[in-house]
């Protein structure tokens, strides 16, 4: 009896674990998902671009790092477009046009992200201005002290 229950439990566990496997497509990966381009310069350009494009399935990985089928298809897309003579910037622009800035795994300056870049600069500037004001005051104070002596 217990063996039976154990077996049933094991089967249930196995089925539960098997579910995500069922949700995988049965086609082989796209031709250039795991195959490098024959031209090393093009492959390097494509690889560098892949490292800066976000995987849509697993959003905290780049398409170069992910084994998701969609990341494979995106690597295929990037490699075929680079092989066809497009520049990495053109391919990146093509993707941003379709998915917005979020697809970029490398922070870029845009209409919505510029405060992230301008903010720290403004803070440093502000700190410099305050520091200058303080130092000038202190200098003035020491000079005044000396004058009094």
């Amino acid at each position, binding site marked *: 009896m217990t063996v039976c229950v154990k077996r049933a439990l094991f089967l249930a566990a196995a089925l539960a674990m098997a579910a995500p496997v*069922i*949700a995988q*497509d049965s086609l082989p990966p*796209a031709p250039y998902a795991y195959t490098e381009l024959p031209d090393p310069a093009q492959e390097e350009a494509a690889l560098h671009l892949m490292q800066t494009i976000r995987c849509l399935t697993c959003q905290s990985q780049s398409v170069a790092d992910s084994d998701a*089928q*969609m990341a494979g298809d995106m690597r295929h*897309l990037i490699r075929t477009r680079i092989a066809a003579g497009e520049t990495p910037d053109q391919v990146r622009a093509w993707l941003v046009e379709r998915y*917005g800035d*979020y697809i970029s795994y490398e922070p870029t300056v845009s209409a919505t992200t510029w405060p992230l870049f301008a903010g720290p600069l403004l803070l440093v500037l502000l700190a410099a201005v305050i520091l200058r004001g303080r130092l000038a005051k202190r200098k003035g104070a020491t000079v005044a002290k000396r004058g009094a002596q």
Partner: protein
Amino acid sequence: MTRLRVFLWGIVAVSLAVFGLFAYQLSQPKDDFIQSAMIGKPMPQFDLRPAVEGLPGLATADLANGRPKLVNVFASWCIPCRVEAPQMEALRQNGVDIVAIAIRDRPEDLAQFFAVYGNPFTRVGADDVSAVQLSIGSSGVPETFVVDGRGIIRYQHIGEIRPEHVALLMAKLQEAQS
């Protein structure tokens, strides 16, 4: 002295505002969806071969024939796609023309999927390397796009269509009519 006091209270106020913002954002449900940036733009050029025996494939020209359509991005291996099957059938019975893009699928798997869950589609194109999916800014399966009679993408529904979404999609199709 009062200036220092005002300054210190200012720091307290700013910190409270920052932590308040954190608390608010943490209490909001996380939105993982990546919206397509193609809404309002024409469907890109493509011509997909038929994905399953007995139904035609899907090309851009089929989407600009004057009649608004639903374009369902789906796959036989996708579990939530089974959940939306009854809603697809309801939409079809409401007179909606639904076409589909099958992602990384095999004809025999699709035939089996349709045998079990029904086939609400008039056309099914095979997208073997997700090329069309990537060109319309779709980031997973299932997703459903409302495309107007001129082939312009008007609305994107991400995830499975649940019963409560049917009325919304009907309204979006109505809007696309004008």
